[in-house]
C-alpha cells in the first residue's frame, strides 16, 4: 500500500475542503477502498476519514418517504424499523450482500461507490483494463467473462456493478443527495451510475470533491409485495451472477405499479422502465411476468462465457415477481 496522509473530518464542509488536494479520497467503512489500496488498484495520496460526520440517521420525510444518512451502516439500515416495515426490498437486498462483519462496516454512501469485482480490474498483474488504466484495453472482452455484463456494455469495458443495495434502491426510485465545493444538489438514482461508454474509468456522475450526504426514498409502494432474488455460485457471501429487485403495488390481482431492477448484468444497476410500464395495469401472473422479463432483457448481448445469464435473468425476473406477488408470507411455502 502506498503511503498516504490521513485526516479526520468533523463536518461535511471540512471534508469537502480537505478533498480539494490532489488524489484525495473520502474514507467511510473502507471495506472496498482499503482492499483495493492493498492490491495497488487505488493509491490515494490523502484519505479523509468521514466516519465522524453527523450523517448516521434514518428519518421520515414530510412526503412519507425516508432520508438515509450516507454513513448509516448497511447492517443498521437493513435492520432499521422503518426500512424493515416500509422498504423490506431494501432490507432483503442489503442482507443478501457481503458478510455480517462487512455489513457492520460498510456505509450507505460507500456502497453506492463500490467498484467492480471484474478480475482484470482487481488484479494489477493484468496490464489491460481501461477502468484501472485508461487506454490499456479490456482484458475481459475476449477473456474469461463469465461474471460480466450482458446489457449496456461497450468495447471499452464489460464490467458489472457489484452492489445489492444499489439494485434495491434503483427499483425503489431513490434520489441521492450530494454536497460539493459549489453547494448541494440531488441526483436521481438512474442518473447516478454510468454506463462505461468510452470512459469506463468513471463509475458515477459525481463531480470532483462531491460528498454523498444522504439517499432519499420516496413514500413506500411495495411494502407488502416485494422480493430480492440473488443468484450466485454459492448460497452466501458471494457476488451475484444475476440479482433481481422486484416490487409490486397491488390492487387485488391487478398490478397498479411496479419497480424492477437487475444486478450483475450491467455497469450500473439495470432499471427497466419498459418492463415496469408493461406490468402497470396487468394481471399478476406468468404471462405478464414473462413479458416483463423479455422487455428487461431486450438488447442483451452475451460474451463468450456468459450467455447463460440472459435466460437466467429472465427466469429470475419471473421468479422474483411471482414471490413478490405472493407477499412476504407467501415465501414460507
Amino acid at each position, binding site marked *: *500500500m*502506498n*503511503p*498516504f*496522509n*490521513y485526516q*479526520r473530518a468533523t463536518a461535511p464542509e471540512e471534508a469537502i475542503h480537505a478533498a480539494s488536494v*490532489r*488524489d484525495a479520497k473520502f*474514507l467511510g467503512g*473502507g*471495506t472496498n477502498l*482499503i*482492499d483495493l489500496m*492493498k492490491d*495497488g488498484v487505488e*493509491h490515494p*495520496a490523502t*484519505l479523509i*476519514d468521514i*466516519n465522524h460526520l453527523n450523517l448516521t440517521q434514518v428519518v421520515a420525510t414530510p412526503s412519507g418517504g425516508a432520508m438515509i444518512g450516507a454513513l448509516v451502516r448497511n*447492517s443498521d439500515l*437493513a*435492520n432499521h424499523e422503518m426500512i*424493515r416495515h416500509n422498504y*423490506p426490498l431494501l*432490507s*432483503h437486498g442489503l*442482507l*443478501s450482500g*457481503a*458478510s*455480517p*462483519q*462487512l455489513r*457492520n*462496516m460498510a456505509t450507505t454512501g460507500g456502497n453506492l461507490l463500490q467498484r467492480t469485482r471484474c478480475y482484470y480490474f482487481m488484479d*494489477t*498483474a*493484468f*496490464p489491460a483494463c481501461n477502468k484501472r*488504466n485508461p487506454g490499456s484495453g479490456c482484458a475481459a472482452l475476449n477473456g474469461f467473462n463469465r461474471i460480466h455484463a450482458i446489457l449496456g456494455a461497450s468495447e471499452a469495458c464489460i464490467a458489472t456493478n457489484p452492489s445489492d443495495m444499489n439494485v434495491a434502491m434503483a427499483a425503489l426510485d431513490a434520489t441521492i443527495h450530494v454536497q460539493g465545493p459549489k453547494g448541494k444538489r440531488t441526483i436521481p438514482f438512474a442518473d447516478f451510475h454510468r454506463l462505461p461508454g468510452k470512459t469506463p474509468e468513471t463509475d458515477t456522475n459525481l463531480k470532483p470533491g462531491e460528498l454523498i450526504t444522504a439517499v432519499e426514498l420516496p413514500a413506500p409502494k411495495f411494502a407488502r409485495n416485494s422480493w*430480492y432474488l*440473488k443468484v450466485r455460485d454459492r448460497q*452466501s*457471501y458471494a457476488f451475484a451472477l444475476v440479482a433481481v429487485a422486484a416490487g409490486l403495488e397491488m390492487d387485488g390481482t391487478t398490478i397498479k405499479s411496479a419497480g424492477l431492477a437487475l444486478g450483475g448484468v450491467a455497469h450500473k444497476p439495470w432499471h427497466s422502465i419498459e418492463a415496469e410500464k408493461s406490468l402497470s395495469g396487468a394481471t399478476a401472473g406468468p404471462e405478464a411476468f414473462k413479458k416483463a422479463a423479455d422487455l428487461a432483457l431486450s438488447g442483451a448481448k452475451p460474451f463468450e462465457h456468459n450467455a447463460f445469464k440472459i435466460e437466467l435473468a429472465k427466469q429470475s425476473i419471473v421468479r422474483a415477481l411471482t414471490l413478490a406477488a405472493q407477499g*412476504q*408470507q*407467501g*415465501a*414460507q411455502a
Partner: protein
Amino acid sequence: MSAPPCSPPSDYEEEILETELTPGDNEFSRRTFVKAAGILSAGVATGVPRIAAAENAQAAAATTPQKISVTLKVNGKSESLTLDTRTTLLDALREHLDLTGSKKGCDHGQCGACTVILDGRRVNSCLTLAAVANGAEITTIEGLAHGDDIDSLSPIQAAFFQHDAFQCGYCTPGQICSATALLEEQKHGTLSTVSFETGHTSNPQLTDDEIRERMSGNICRCAAYPNIVAAVRAAARSAQA
C-alpha cells in the same frame, strides 16, 4: 492519474525497516521474504507486464510514510501507539500490542480470521485502519475469558471446546468473536437473508440455516462447520435458558 515524483521501491522498503523493525524482527524478515518471493513468482508467471504494473503502482505513491498517534482501548486496557497511517487494526494488535490471537488469513476481508468486536460490533480488523479505530473499544479473543483456567471461558469459547468446533484452530479466534457478536445481534432481533427466505422476519430464531448464514463471514478450511454450528446452537440455547 498524473505522474507524481517517483519514490523508488528501495526507499519504501527502508522506511518499513525503520518503522517496523523494533517490535518483531522475525515477523519483518518473514514478511519481506514472502513479499519478495511473491513478486518473483508473479514475474515468472506473467512476464514483464506484472513488473511494469508494480512499478506504476509504486510511482503513484506520492507521499512518504506518515505517522499518527492512536489510542485504542483493547480488552479494557488503554493503549497509545504511534503508527504508520497504513497500519490496519489487525497489524496494530498483532505487531504492536503482541495480541496475536486475531489471525491474518486472507488480509482482504474474505475469510473472517481477523474478526474482532469494535464498539460492540463484529468487524474485519484487516480492513479497518488503526487510525479509523482511534478511540474505539476493541475486544479480541484474548479478552473474552474472565480468567486463565478452563472454567473462565466465555459461553461461546466453552461451547467450541465442548463441541470440538475446530481442527487446526487458525480460524477459531475469528469464529468465536463472530459467534459472540452473533448472539448479541440476535438478542436485538436482527435479520438475515434467511429470515426473509423463510418468512420469519419478526424476531427470527437461530435455526441451523440462520446460524450458517450469520457465520458465513468466517471460513474454516478444515471444514469444521458441522461442529461450529453445533457449538453456536448450544451456546444460543443456553443463553436463552
